């Protein structure tokens, strides 16, 4: 792997981020509605008296710079974004968007990254066994079950899991990420986190495992037809060595590509899981920001989601040559 390769990948990363920032800037401004007016309406609807509403709107618009020309708003936005100053949240005023996101981020990373990796690992092994002629017969019967799982959306699975394991027998908490008002960093605190994270994690694993298994099965069938598999068998290698070193090792390559993208999009993909379980992550934050037309927060979250996709693709680009030697010389 040469330095120019690494530099090119990093340059690509920044180009993607800049495009995302631009789109991110334009899209919310195309939507109808005015953020300050939205906040005022909220206050009004709660029966609060707001005097001089027009003045307040004007004052806020001035404060958030919504009256400046678009190009000025844009340049300011790009500059601020690149320094991770994503503005002030309107609905959680005066907290900054960055601090909101940084509070939510560890929850999402903890929940989604771990569940996605578990789903990936489990699904890949099961998928490989589905295609492997030497695996026991009962493994074959998993296939239709996995297809059904991969077809059910995350949030529906979340609701089913919630009902079957929490509401009905009362084994698990209905939502939240921890007991009490703040997580504690003791052994008990950790167990409590696992206890709360189990159901949302389970629904993500269940929803993901079918996808990974079916993808792996397809890749595996392709690899099993290759000449080097016939030769591996001819060489008298043990089935275990052929399975792991020859078949799975090669079939995993396309899977890893999908993993990087899945890790990036997992955050947005499971907004509804976080909502269903009241899990205080990015998805939940985004859901609330959308409800209250909180421009800056929506933009901030969207920016972070793009950042995670771009980052995971960057990381993939940098580690993929280690997995597939054919990529190394380009």
């Amino acid at each position, binding site marked *: 792997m040469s330095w120019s390769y690494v530099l090119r990948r990093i340059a690509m990363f920044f180009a993607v981020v800049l495009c995302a920032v631009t789109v991110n800037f334009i899209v919310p401004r195309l939507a109808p509605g005015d953020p300050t007016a939205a906040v005022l309406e909220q206050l009004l609807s709660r029966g609060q008296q707001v005097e001089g509403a027009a003045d307040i709107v004007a004052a806020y618009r001035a404060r958030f710079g919504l009256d400046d020309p678009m190009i000025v708003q844009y340049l300011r936005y790009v500059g601020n974004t690149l320094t991770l100053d994503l503005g002030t949240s309107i609905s959680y005023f005066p907290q900054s968007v960055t601090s909101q996101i940084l509070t939510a981020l560890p929850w999402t990373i903890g929940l989604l990254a771990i569940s996605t990796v578990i789903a990936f690992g489990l699904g890949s092994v099961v998928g490989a066994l589905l295609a492997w002629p030497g695996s026991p017969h009962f493994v074959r019967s998993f296939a239709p079950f996995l297809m059904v799982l991969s077809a059910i959306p995350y949030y529906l699975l979340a609701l089913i899991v919630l009902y079957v394991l929490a509401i009905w027998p009362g084994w698990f908490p209905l939502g939240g990420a921890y007991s009490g008002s703040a997580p504690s960093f003791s052994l008990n605190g950790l167990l409590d986190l696992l206890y709360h994270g189990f159901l949302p994690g389970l629904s993500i694993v269940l929803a993901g495992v079918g996808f990974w298994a079916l993808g792996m099965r397809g890749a595996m069938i392709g690899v099993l037809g290759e000449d080097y598999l*016939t030769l591996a*068998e*001819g*060489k*008298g*290698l*043990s089935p275990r*060595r052929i399975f792991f070193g020859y078949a799975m090792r090669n079939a995993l390559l396309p899977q890893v590509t999908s993993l990087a993208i899945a890790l990036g999009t997992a955050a947005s993909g499971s907004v509804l899981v976080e909502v269903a379980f009241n899990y205080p992550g990015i998805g939940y934050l985004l859901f609330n920001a959308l409800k209250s037309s909180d421009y800056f927060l929506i933009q901030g979250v969207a920016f972070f989601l793009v950042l995670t996709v771009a980052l995971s693709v960057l990381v993939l680009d940098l580690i993929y040559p280690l997995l597939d*030697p054919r990529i190394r010389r380009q």
Partner: protein
Amino acid sequence: MIDAPLLSINDLSVSYAIGNERARAVDGLSLTLGAGQRLGIVGESGSGKSTLALALMRLHKPPAMIDSGQILLGGTDILRLDQGALRKFRWSEVALIPQGAMNALNPVIKVREQMADTIRAHRRDMSARDINKRIDELLVRVGLSTSVAGLYPHELSGGMKQRVCIALAIVLEPKLIIADEPTSALDVVVQRVVIETLKDVQAQIGAAMIMIGHDMGLMAQSVDHLAVMYAGRLVDQAPIREFFRRPLHPYSQLLISSLPSPDETRPLAGIPGMQPSLLDLPAGCAFHPRCPLVQPICREVMPPLETVEPHRRVACHVVAEAYNVRA
């Protein structure tokens, strides 16, 4: 061919299940091969030669299935081995140089490791140092530098890959090497050099070799005996010089007359017609629709493979009659 053959195949039939029908890719084939001998098997695509090669190591995959027969190698009945014994037998007794060696190596593992795993699978007691020494020695023997061991397959040229495959084939000094179109993906110059290398190492370790292909010229330089397959059956077998000097089976005659000759100027002659589908073989001799010497009996009775001269076997009514081997 000689008193105690190394390999003897008796009445072997391999078929592919296609829907409810079975296509006999190898049909009642018998042959023997002595230690150190080189046998070439030629035939058109679909004549069953690659199926035969895979079946000899029991590497055929469903829908292919061995229906009947016996394969004896050094007294071991290959078709009766259980999975564990089969694994030990493979490569230590019979090694394969596969068709299309381009994809025969695992793309994500270095050459050294692909050779080492083979040795480790069979010689548990061999130390890592001895294994590495052995690999270096083999690479040099096939004309490669030892540094090739540290490379990945995609870093090698086609000829180098094929040499690696040859080195790999002799890593355990097998008694039999099966080379399935070992040079089909190489250019003519490299083909020659690779075949020479293959012959050299085969002679050095004293292994017998079955070489499968359809390049008659290449066969002429490489093998002692030639066998011709047509539609799953062995139709002609002869020492290589005899075969070229005086081909007996009409199909063999046409094969040889279709070879371009540097001495005479004439239009290239092909063999008219197509090899029949294995699912819809003509009655009698499978070659009769294309045969210039066809007789009424050919359309009705399948000619058996008969020894007409020492070391020469032919399945043809016309030849059998000429030699008067039939009552």
